[in-house]
C-alpha cells in the first residue's frame, strides 16, 4: 500500500505572456523520499518551485500539500504549512552572523518572534535548533561570522541550513551545488545524504552524480512538461532523456 502523497500537483500551468513555462505539470512526492527534478535549462524547474512556494501564482492547476490545498497562497503561509526552500542564487542575510541567519529561520514559526521587549538570547528553542542545524550543514565553526564573509561553498551550505532550520516537512532545494567546485559538491552531497529521513526532499540538480547518489525518484521536465519519471536507472536508460539533454547542449 502506498502512503498518500505529501505533495500532489495536478495539471499545473504558468504562462509568461506567450511563453508556457509550465504546461500542465502533474507530480506526486511520496513522504520520506528524496525526489529529484532534472531537465535542461528553461525546462521550468525553478518556475515550478516558485509556484509551489507561492512566489509566483499559477495560471491554472492544483497543489495539495499534506492533504490541504496550498494553490496560490502567499509565500509565508506556504512556509508555515511546512514547505521550505533554498534558492539557486544564494539568498541569505549577508550582514547577520551565521547563527543569526539560522536563528531567524528557526524562529519563523512565530513563537517568540513577536516579543517586543524580550531578549534574543533567551529564545532557547530557536537558538538550540540553529546550533543543531549549523552542525548538520557543517558550519559549527563559523557561528559568529557574518554570512557575507563566508566562502562561496560555505554560503551554499548555509543556504541549505537556513531552509532546513525551519524544520519543514518538505524541503525544496534549488541546485544546491550550483557553481561549486568538485570537492565542494562532494561535501554538499555527503551533507544532503546525512539529512534526517523524516524530511522529504525535492531537489533540482544538474549534477548527475549528485542525482544518482541521492535521489530515489527522478522526474524529467522538458519545456514545462513531465517527460518521464522513475528511478534514476530507469530514467537514465530512457532514450528521450538523452535526446533532450544533447538536443539542448
Amino acid at each position, binding site marked *: 500500500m502506498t502512503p498518500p502523497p505529501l505533495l500532489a500537483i495536478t495539471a499545473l500551468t504558468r504562462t509568461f505572456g506567450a511563453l508556457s513555462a509550465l504546461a500542465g505539470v502533474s507530480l506526486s512526492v511520496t513522504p520520506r523520499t528524496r525526489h529529484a527534478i532534472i531537465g535542461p535549462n528553461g525546462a521550468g524547474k525553478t518556475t515550478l518551485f516558485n509556484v509551489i512556494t507561492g512566489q509566483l501564482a499559477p495560471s491554472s492547476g492544483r497543489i495539495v500539500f499534506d492533504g490541504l490545498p496550498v494553490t496560490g497562497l502567499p509565500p509565508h503561509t506556504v512556509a508555515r504549512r511546512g514547505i521550505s526552500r533554498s534558492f539557486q542564487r544564494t539568498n541569505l542575510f549577508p550582514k547577520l552572523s551565521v547563527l543569526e541567519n539560522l536563528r531567524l529561520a528557526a524562529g519563523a514559526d512565530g513563537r517568540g518572534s513577536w516579543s*517586543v521587549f524580550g531578549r534574543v538570547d533567551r529564545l532557547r528553542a530557536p537558538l538550540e535548533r540553529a546550533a543543531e542545524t549549523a552542525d548538520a550543514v557543517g558550519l559549527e565553526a563559523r557561528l559568529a561570522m557574518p554570512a557575507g564573509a563566508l566562502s562561496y561553498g560555505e554560503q551554499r551550505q548555509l543556504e541549505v541550513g537556513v531552509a532546513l532550520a525551519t524544520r519543514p516537512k518538505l524541503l525544496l532545494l534549488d541546485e544546491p551545488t550550483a557553481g561549486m567546485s568538485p570537492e565542494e559538491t562532494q561535501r554538499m552531497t555527503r551533507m544532503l545524504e546525512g539529512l534526517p529521513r523524516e524530511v522529504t526532499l525535492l531537489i533540482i540538480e544538474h549534477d548527475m552524480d549528485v542525482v544518482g547518489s541521492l535521489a530515489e525518484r527522478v522526474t524529467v521536465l522538458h519545456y514545462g512538461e513531465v517527460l518521464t519519471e522513475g528511478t534514476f536507472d530507469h530514467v537514465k536508460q530512457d532514450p528521450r532523456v538523452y535526446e533532450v539533454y544533447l538536443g539542448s547542449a
Partner: protein
Amino acid sequence: MIARGVVIAALIVGVAVFPAFAGKYPVKLLQEILIWGIFAMSLDLLMGYAGMVSLGHSAFFGVGGYVAALALLKSPGVVSGLLLPAAAAALAALVIGFFSIRVSGVYFIMLTLAFSQMFYAVTFQVAWLGAEDGIVGVPRLAALGLDTAQPLQFHFSLVALVAVGALVLWRIVRSPFGHVLRGIHENEPRMEALGYAVNRYKLLAFVIAGTVAGVAGSLYTQLVGSITPDAFLWTTSGEALLMVIIGGTSTLAGSMLGAAAFILLQSLVSSYTERWMLILGLTFILLVLFAPGGVVGALRGRVGIRS
C-alpha cells in the same frame, strides 16, 4: 556593560541638573534636542532597523501635537498630555501604515509624504484647528502632583519621559521582534519565504515609531505652548531624517547626537548669518562624504566603540 550603564546614568543626571548651571536659552535648546532626539530615534527604528525610509513621519509628530493642544486646553491631565496624543498618533500610524507598507522604496517615501501633506492641507484649512495660525496658549500637563508649568518640573519630567522612550526603543531593537525587523531590512523576500508575515511586522514597527513620534509632538507643543500646521510639513520629516543620518542610522544613540548636532549648529550659525541653511547644507554634504556612518560611525572607527 556596567561601565556603559554608569555612563548613561551619568548622562541622564547631567542632562537633568543642567538648568542649575545654565541660563534659560541653553536649557530650551537642550529640551528641543531631547524632543527632536526622541522623534529622530523613532524614525531610526523605521529607517535604520526596518529599512523603511519615510518622509511622512511628521504626520505623527503633528497629530500628537494637535491632539495634545486640543486636549490640554480642556483639561491638563496625563490623559490629555500623554495618553491621548500617543493613542491618536498610533491610530494615524495604523491607518497610514496599512496603506503605505504595501509598497517599498521610493513609493513608500512618496506615499508617506503624501499622507503627511494631507494633514498639513487639512489643518491649514480647518477653522476649529486654528487654520494657518494653529493653536496657541496651550497649557502644560499638570497631574500626579506635578505642575509642569514650573520650568524645573517640566524639565525633569521631560528628561524622564525621553529616557523612558529611549529605553523602550533600545529594548525593542534588541528584542526578537527587533531582530525580525533587521532580517526584513536585509532580505525581505527571504524572510517571507521563511514564513514571516512580513507586512504585519512592518505595520507594528510603523505603529510603534508613530506612537513615539506622537509623544514627541505632544512634548514639543507643551515646550513652545503652541502648534501650527508647519509641524506636518515635509521639512519636519526631512529634518528628522537629517538628524538620523548625521548621527548614523541604526544606532539609536546616533539620532540623539544628530539632533544635538543639528540644533546646536542651527542656533550657533543662525546667530551669525541669515544663511545658516547654506552652512548646514555644506556641513551635511561634507559629513556624508567623509563620515558616511554618521557621527557614531566615525566615533566607532576612532575610539573603537561598539554597538
